């Protein structure tokens, strides 16, 4: 691989890391600060992806869409759509322990996958949505990639700063209080359910935005692009390894895990075909094992949560 190819690859990777960082930040709002178990990240990602795709894409026969609306509208719609799906689920499940939310979100992701595959008039079915515009897509390959990276990086930065600001505010303290001792927080007059719902909806909206960024980067989206369990699980490992409850940790974890995951894919692709299929699933085994090892030996992650005024992590 020559130098230019390497640089191209690095930019490509950086864009995807940015998208995953947004997902990890969204999950950090839900899990890291509030203790909500979302096992359907891929579902919210897909909703955002398709919402923006349908609103901004070129017209195509046989499916809804072709409104050619501005990108910003598509992105806002992606966030709104993911939030709209999250709201009723949270409303029903957040009264109970997080296990129930986890089960329900697995179901949501499954239903969303079914809808995407079945409702061809909406999503193009298995053919998916194509002709999705890309900002600065008219430029040459490299400038266009760099421009997109700049957009993604800006959005990650904005999301990071906003979440960081929220977490340091009284709101963030209240969320941690609810996470760490629900009864005490409720006794202090905090509305546990409503606050959790806020965190769940905000986090899901961020995941929807990540989905939108992903489709505008690829210019198309098909049901195959979103493998529910592996995608969801990768994001969980990113957050846990990076350090749940720490936004920089979430972004760092996204980078580390995505690089390991992609490099391992490059390696397994070079294997002879007889073992290539096995190697593909062995990778999945290894990410499962990685989670167990992190949970066991470094549950606080690479960058542990910083609690102002509290002694370092137990």
């Amino acid at each position: 691989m020559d130098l230019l190819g390497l640089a191209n690859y690095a930019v490509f990777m950086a864009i995807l890391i940015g998208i995953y960082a947004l997902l990890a930040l969204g999950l950090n709002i839900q899990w890291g600060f509030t203790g909500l178990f979302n096992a359907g990240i891929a579902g919210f990602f897909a909703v955002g992806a398709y919402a923006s795709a349908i609103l901004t894409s070129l017209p195509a026969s046989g499916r809804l869409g072709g409104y050619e609306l501005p990108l910003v509208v598509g992105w806002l719609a992606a966030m709104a759509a993911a939030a709209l799906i999250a709201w009723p689920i949270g409303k029903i499940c957040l009264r109970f322990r997080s296990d129930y939310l986890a089960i329900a979100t697995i179901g949501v992701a499954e239903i969303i996958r079914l809808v995407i595959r079945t409702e061809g008039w909406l999503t193009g079915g298995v053919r998916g949505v194509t002709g999705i515009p890309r900002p600065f897509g008219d430029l040459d390959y490299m400038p266009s990639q760099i421009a997109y990276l700049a957009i993604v990086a800006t959005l990650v930065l904005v999301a990071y700063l906003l979440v960081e600001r929220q977490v340091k505010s009284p709101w963030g303290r209240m969320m941690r209080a609810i996470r760490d001792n629900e009864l005490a927080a409720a006794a202090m007059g905090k509305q546990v359910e409503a606050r959790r719902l806020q965190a769940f909806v905000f986090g899901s909206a961020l995941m929807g935005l990540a989905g939108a960024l992903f489709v505008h980067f690829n210019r198309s989206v098909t049901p195959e692009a979103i493998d529910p369990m592996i995608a969801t699980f990768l994001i969980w490992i990113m957050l846990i390894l990076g350090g749940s409850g720490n936004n920089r940790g979430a972004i760092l974890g996204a980078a580390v895990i995505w690089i390991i995951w992609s490099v391992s894919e490059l390696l397994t692709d070079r294997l002879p075909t007889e073992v290539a299929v096995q190697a593909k699933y062995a990778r999945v085994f290894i990410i499962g094992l990685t989670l167990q090892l992190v949970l066991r030996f470094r549950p606080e992650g690479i960058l542990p949560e910083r609690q102002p005024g509290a002694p370092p992590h137990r």
Partner: protein
Amino acid sequence: MSFLEFLNFHLVPGIVLGSVYAVGAIGITLVFGILRFAHFAHGDMATLGAFIALALVTAGLTPWAALPVAMAAVAVVAIVVDKLFYDYLKARPKIMTVMASLGVALMLRAVVQVVFGVDPRTYATGIVRPDDYFGILLRDRELYTLAAVVLIVVGLTLFLRHSRWGKAMRAMSDNPDLARLSGVDNRKVTMLTWAIVGALCAASGFMLGINNELQSMMGWQVLLPMFAAAILGGVGRVEGAVLGGLIVGVAEEMSIFILPAQYKAATAFVLLLLILLVRPRGLLNGKVL
């Protein structure tokens, strides 16, 4: 549609599917009730059991003879998984164990995919014609499935009601601290629970496989219906899990009257949300965690 057609094409398949869900849901309800967490590796543990049985069948055993061996094998697997991946998380919030079990689900499935590949398999080849029982069409394997489920449910209920260890399990389900104070060894009860849960997983996976085909994703796909069944019946209640399993199974088969067939898999989810909305303790008044 005549009544017999309705019976043969919708109700009977629903009951068979439902009784398989019931076996899985009993395991989920035991873990949920006694160990107090949602066990997400349940479906993939069932897949593993089904494929262990397949390996035995390939080695020359008949499917129904392979079942008890597979149950014993997965019982051991479940105990080992608990020792390796769940036990040390005991003192931390239960949701960490839920997360670990999601990782275990992925690992178990990857093992099946590496060892057995991803192509659909069956225990026996060829088409089996159903026999006619007064107009009701049943295949032998469906009869055996129903019989095995009844045997498992009756045996387990008797065990939980009357045996020393069964009582210890129920005591731990009611109140672990009180049970320990009364001399119940929580560690042993945990081990016993995992052995039973593992065996039930293998049984449900096997029955799923023999009535249809074996796939590496099949366990994950039935996880949601099984959870819906356990919560519908009431968490911690074995008879509730059976009732819930039957309701979910029959509802899935009936769903095609109101929903397009592609959305069959959505039935369980709808039932789950409905029961959480109106009666989170479940039909038979179980626990709410």
